[in-house]
């Protein structure tokens, strides 16, 4: 039997009155991968996530979670996933332990199981020393850790993270990434939304680029980068004259775009063979570069090339 994808959504749309927030989006998320919904603010990422987690009813389209229909089996499907981040929340008036315990009970654990699982998660997320303190004393990082630990109570197969690192300092963000990677190693499927390209690049196996409610690109980070931007070769020469001469020699070797600024020359190229040709031509022309850099395209290039944003 072919295993069902973790998530399969088809022509998913959401309208708020006249405004279309999500417009016929379709994609599959495979079991065990990290899938990132990337896009500028207001692009519709969170709306998609809210539909995937049963918080919003789609206007049209279908969603399947591990082969279960989300609309017809919503209560049962909720036991398959956990949600953490921007929209999920912790109970401010309770302690970390009480938060974990009540949510354990709500997840169907018995009192005894709830107590054990709570202890386990408090230790796993290094919250054990603050377990019985009220959340008012918690730092932003501790709050996120508690939030994440609550969503992991029932050991869900799928975990949704809504902007998991927004507003966190670099160290806490690094820790969060580490935790997410551990989750994936343990076999969990992770779907996250982010507006940070670096985050998507670091974590995701596949990225769906969303803008104005539409799916504008879908693929691996590598594929997306290659689709939009080619690699760049940066050459620095001793002086401007040499650089100008080099431009001619390079142009003969490749049909990529050649640009000169002062004593620097930028060449875009697609195949590594091009570099050999360029360097051979330079040698023939008796020009030698002081410095050579090869620049991989960044997701930033993709982001700016493909999204407009709301502003």
């Amino acid at each position: 039997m072919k295993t069902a994808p973790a998530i399969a959504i088809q022509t998913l749309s959401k309208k708020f009155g006249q405004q279309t927030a999500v417009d016929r989006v379709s994609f599959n998320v495979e079991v065990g991968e990290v899938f990132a919904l990337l896009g500028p603010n207001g692009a519709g990422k969170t709306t998609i996530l809210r539909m995937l987690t049963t918080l919003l009813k789609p206007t049209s389209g279908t969603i399947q979670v591990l082969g279960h229909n989300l609309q017809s089996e919503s209560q049962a499907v909720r036991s398959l996933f956990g949600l953490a981040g921007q929209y999920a929340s912790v109970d401010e008036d309770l302690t970390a332990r009480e938060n974990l315990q009540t949510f354990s009970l709500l997840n169907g654990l018995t009192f005894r199981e709830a107590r054990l699982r709570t202890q386990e998660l408090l230790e796993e997320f290094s919250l054990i020393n603050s377990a019985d303190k009220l959340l008012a004393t918690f730092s932003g990082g501790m709050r996120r850790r508690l939030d994440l630990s609550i969503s992991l109570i029932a050991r869900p197969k799928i975990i949704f993270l809504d902007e998991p690192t927004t507003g966190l300092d670099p160290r806490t963000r690094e820790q969060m990434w580490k935790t997410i990677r551990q989750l994936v190693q343990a076999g969990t499927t992770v779907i996250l939304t982010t507006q940070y390209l670096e985050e998507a690049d670091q974590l995701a196996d596949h990225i769906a680029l969303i803008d104005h409610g539409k799916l504008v690109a879908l693929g691996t980070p590598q594929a997306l980068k290659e689709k939009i931007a080619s690699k760049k070769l940066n050459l620095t020469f001793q002086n401007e004259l040499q650089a100008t001469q080099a431009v001619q020699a390079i142009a003969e070797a490749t049909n990529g775009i050649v640009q000169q600024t002062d004593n620097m020359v930028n060449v875009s190229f697609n195949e590594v063979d091009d570099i050999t040709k360029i360097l051979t031509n330079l040698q023939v022309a008796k020009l030698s570069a002081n410095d050579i850099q090869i620049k991989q395209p960044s997701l930033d290039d993709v982001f700016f090339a493909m999204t407009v944003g709301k502003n």
Partner: protein
Amino acid sequence: MLETHKTSIFKSTLTMAYRNLLKTLHNPDKLLDVVIQPILFMLLFGYLFSGAIAGNVYAYLPTLVPGILMQSLISAATGSGTQISDDFSTGIFNRLKTLPIPQVAPLAGQLLADILRLLIAATVSLTTGYLMGWRPAAGLGWAILVVILDVFLGWALSWIFALYGLFAKSSTMVESISLMTMLLLVFLSNAFVPVKTLPPFMKILVELNPVSYVINASRTILNAGFWPTSAWIVLGAGIVIISIFAPLTVLVYKRK
């Protein structure tokens, strides 16, 4: 096929009520309105107005105690609206809605916990009255019956406030509107003053006010020791309110 599960309505509702209890334990100030307020009003009204209205405190207490009882219960009932509105603005309901529990469980848990608040408010009101010298003429048994009747009506009212809590923009707004509603309902009734002293147009308003019915029924039971027709009307009204507002609140809650 993957195993899925559901948590029963019974267990999830109890857990939600337990959560409510924990919240109150950590923030005892949430009980201020059901503990301090009845005491304050009973003392203020008892000693301030008794001379003018009834001659002395002992003569006024049989009128006042059922009035304060109802006032405290309406005040306690407004708490459900504030709490629900609070939970929505902090986003905790979003998480609750992604759990494998029946959708209505958080709401049901809230209203279950409300019964406790109402019982506290009733107990504090009557105890304060007792300490001031009030004795139910019909005896303790009838007094307990009045508490049950009034708490039931208060609970019915908390469904209305819960519905309002779902619509309101912020819990502060729920609080101020609820306070106004409570003041109007209680003061435009026979809770604190004899109706015969009122000008004609006020008399009409007061006699139309449902709170007057409840208080009348309570006084009759406490003083005369029998179950009057007005008590049946109150009971019926409570059932009607619940059968309209409970499904309506649940419906709005589910769509939110």
